């Protein structure tokens, strides 16, 4: 059934369809309407889940760590400072291999105080051992949240689904909401091999000596290494069941492109619009939309990279002193595969600033005429 939903509403519907059993969340803009809707669904009985009210995001995540340990399916949503407050428990969730699914509605990190969008909040959690997906449409959000439960539960890695605050969270689009039966067939109840059970008590994540700690980290990393094939497989099944296809890297006019821009999130749709315009002018512009930060889809990216194109990366985030995180990741991926090509990073749209079609056209201009720097940040839309 198609309905016009905001990005946040799409999340709530996905959580309902996934038959999540424990939700714990603390309100924070622009995420709040997700947990509000979920509490309504729990209250009305449409979702048979325990909604645990907490006093902070730290407690929200800690609650899910406890709940997920008992073998149930769990969910939370947050943004910016809320995500940062969870930081410590994010490691706990991944180290304990708990398949928690969380939505992060991307919002810039204060200070100065802001509620507007950029991706610095989630990219800053890159090293906590979570899978990270980035969405550009409300339909993709619903589908990704549903798939995330299967991915997380199969890999025993917690999963974060990210999308841009306000640009997506509060913008309405038609969304096809699948039938419950259809989702049930695709996403069976969670089966936990190890679970907290007082009848067969075990100690979880207890004191671990140096003789074993490293091995557990190795196993977690190994799970990340096989993650891409599991993800691909699950999305393939999703495609079969729901007739909607998602790939780790989605290409648009990339094959013959002379300048390719790697993008994530809502900026991808502006970039798509811009590419259409440039193509009409006969310019060979293309885009690659990354859907994942972890696992980083290196192979897929290289497969799609046109051999001769100038490469640009649009980062709506900043690691001060270094640059955009996606640019760093792209560089690292290329080098690891022995591909020595310059990567031009564009930083734009921080703290909710619009990334306009003009901005993106300027990026293509710079890539085409060789004026883009490859050794430092190319700031776009900055008032100098």
């Amino acid at each position: 059934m198609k309905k016009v939903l905001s990005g946040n509403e799409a999340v709530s519907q996905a959580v309902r369809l996934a038959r999540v059993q424990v939700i714990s969340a603390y309100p924070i803009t622009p995420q709040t309407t997700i947990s509000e809707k979920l509490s309504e669904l729990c209250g009305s009985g449409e979702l048979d889940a325990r909604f645990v009210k907490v006093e902070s995001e730290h407690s929200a995540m800690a609650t899910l760590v406890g709940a997920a340990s008992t073998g149930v399916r769990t969910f939370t949503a947050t943004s910016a400072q809320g995500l940062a407050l969870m930081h410590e428990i994010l490691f706990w969730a991944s180290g304990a291999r708990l398949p928690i699914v969380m939505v992060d509605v991307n919002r810039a990190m204060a200070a100065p105080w802001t509620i507007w969008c950029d991706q610095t909040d989630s990219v800053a959690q890159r090293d906590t051992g979570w899978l990270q997906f980035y969405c550009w449409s409300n339909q993709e959000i619903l589908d990704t949240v549903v798939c995330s439960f299967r991915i997380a539960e199969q890999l025993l890695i917690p999963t974060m689904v990210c999308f841009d605050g306000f640009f997506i969270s509060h913008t309405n689009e038609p969304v096809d909401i699948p039938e419950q039966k259809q989702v049930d067939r695709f996403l069976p109840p969670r089966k936990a091999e190890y679970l907290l059970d007082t009848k067969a008590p075990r100690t979880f994540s207890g004191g671990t000596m140096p003789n074993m700690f490293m091995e557990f980290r190795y196993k977690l990393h190994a799970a990340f290494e096989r993650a891409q094939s599991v993800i691909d497989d699950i999305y393939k099944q999703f495609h079969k069941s729901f007739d909607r296809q998602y790939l780790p890297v989605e290409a648009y006019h990339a094959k013959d492109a002379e300048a390719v821009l790697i993008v994530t999130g809502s900026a991808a749709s502006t970039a798509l619009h811009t590419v259409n315009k440039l193509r009409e002018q006969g310019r060979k512009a293309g885009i690659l939309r990354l859907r994942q930060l972890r696992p980083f889809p290196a192979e897929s990216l290289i497969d799609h990279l046109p051999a001769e194109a100038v490469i640009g990366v649009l980062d709506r985030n900043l690691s001060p002193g270094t640059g955009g995180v996606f640019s760093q990741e792209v560089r690292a991926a290329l080098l690891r595969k022995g591909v020595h090509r310059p990567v031009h990073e564009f930083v734009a749209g921080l703290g909710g600033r619009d990334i306009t079609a003009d901005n993106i056209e300027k990026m293509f201009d710079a890539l085409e005429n060789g004026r883009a720097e490859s050794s430092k940040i190319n700031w776009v839309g900055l008032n100098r």
Partner: protein
Amino acid sequence: MSKFVAFKTLAEMPELPVSEARMSWNKTGSWRSSTPAHRGKLPPCNFNCPAGEDIRGYLDLMKRGKVAEAFNLLTEKNPLPAVCGRVCYHPCQTDCNRQSFDTELQIRSVERLIGDWGISKAYRPELPPVGPHKVAVIGAGPAGLAAAHYLRQRRVSVTLFDENEKPGGILEYGIPSYRLDKDTLKAELDRVLDGVEFKPQKRLGRDMELRDLAGYDAIFLATGAHKSKKMFVSGEDTKGVESGLGFLKRINSGENIDLNGKQVAVVGGGNTACDVARSACRLGGQVTVLYRRTENEMPAFAEEIEEMKAEPIDLEFLVAPFKIESTGNRLKLSCHRMELGEPDEDGRRRPVVVEGNDFDMTVDQVFAAIGEDPDISFAGGLVYNADWTLDLSGVEDNLRDKLFIGGDILPQPRTVPHAVASGRMAAEQIDAFLKGVPFEPAARVTEVAGAEDVNFAYFSRLNAARRAHLRDELKSSSDISAAADEANRCLSCGVCFECDNCYNFCPDLAVVRTPGGYRANLDYCKGCGICAKECPSGTLGMQGGRAV
């Protein structure tokens, strides 16, 4: 670390950091530096109840819908719930920890509803057969009733003597029927005296002597305090001057008294004065209460004063009559104006005459209600010492050994629940005496759970509208479910009510359910204190050290 698992290969290791088997060998209790323990505090209601009722206990049973069990628990200590639910001055409510939260529990109303439930169901616990012992109880007031009842419960054959036609003493002949209706009283006393032989119109010293009771194995004397104190005012014996207690007894005996259009003066500020004034008012009298101090010093219970003030009764404070003269049909009452001086031995400020301010009142009737003294002159051989202790040296030896005394004869507060407690404890003591075993009264807990012990986060406040009407609603309710609703507000101060919080919150599963409560499994209790912190009633506390 006594069980160390070494994995040879990575594949042997579990995917996540989880123990391969139980970890119960690891006695984490050895890390403990403090230990959960029952604080052993008493709820303030229980602590303050003169009758010794387990109020918290029967409120808990009411919460669980166990009315019969609640009735049984209540009447284990007080056989008169319908009576006390109406006339008790409810000290149980005074320190209720709900006070600081919303409003105190209306315990007296709950007690009344439980008592009335017993009456409406004609509830009667099964009587055990009588054993070999016989006891005489003299005086069928609250103390005598309680003693007779509990002795009979303990298989003793009891004969209850009273000078009046009906049992009840002050309940029947003192307390006005608008406070305690006769039907309720009769119904309750029928149950209380189940299996007890009642002998009416037997007055000690008139119809029988102590020595006539020598055939009984024990004698309990509880004839009360009903000798009205003298005002020591000239003309006190003038016609038209009567003791308040005598007046109440005449009303309660069914005499037709008409005070229509009469000016009535009631002298005194105690509970009897309130009853007399309100009764006279109901009989048509224009009533003025004369009290020599101010309202603050009135010995009557606050609630009785409030109720009296709600009626068309004049209160004259700082007034003391000193002379009464007959003026044909009427009485001239000469009074001093008083003022408050230094505090006397009981801490109340002493009234002092203001010279030159005397005045006269003309009235038709004067009731003196300035207090009552016990009288045992009729008993033969018993004498009061100056400090109101008893000198039994004049009692024959064979009687003295088995003579027990209680109720208002003793120097204790003159309230129904105090008398009931006295009677009940006499029954326990006499029972021990009959069995030839030493009497050991239960040790009394002296620590009371205060508001600081309660975790109010677990309770919800009454809204302001309910709060305003709660007392009146419950007072007028006749629905036992109202008692259950009210009992639901009980905080169970200091006493476990098996909420499972400690059990649920313990991060180490070290709280074990036991019949009627919980115990800490000290092998694994790390002493984190969460159980105590999350104990709503403040039952649990933490004690320093590894052991309790």
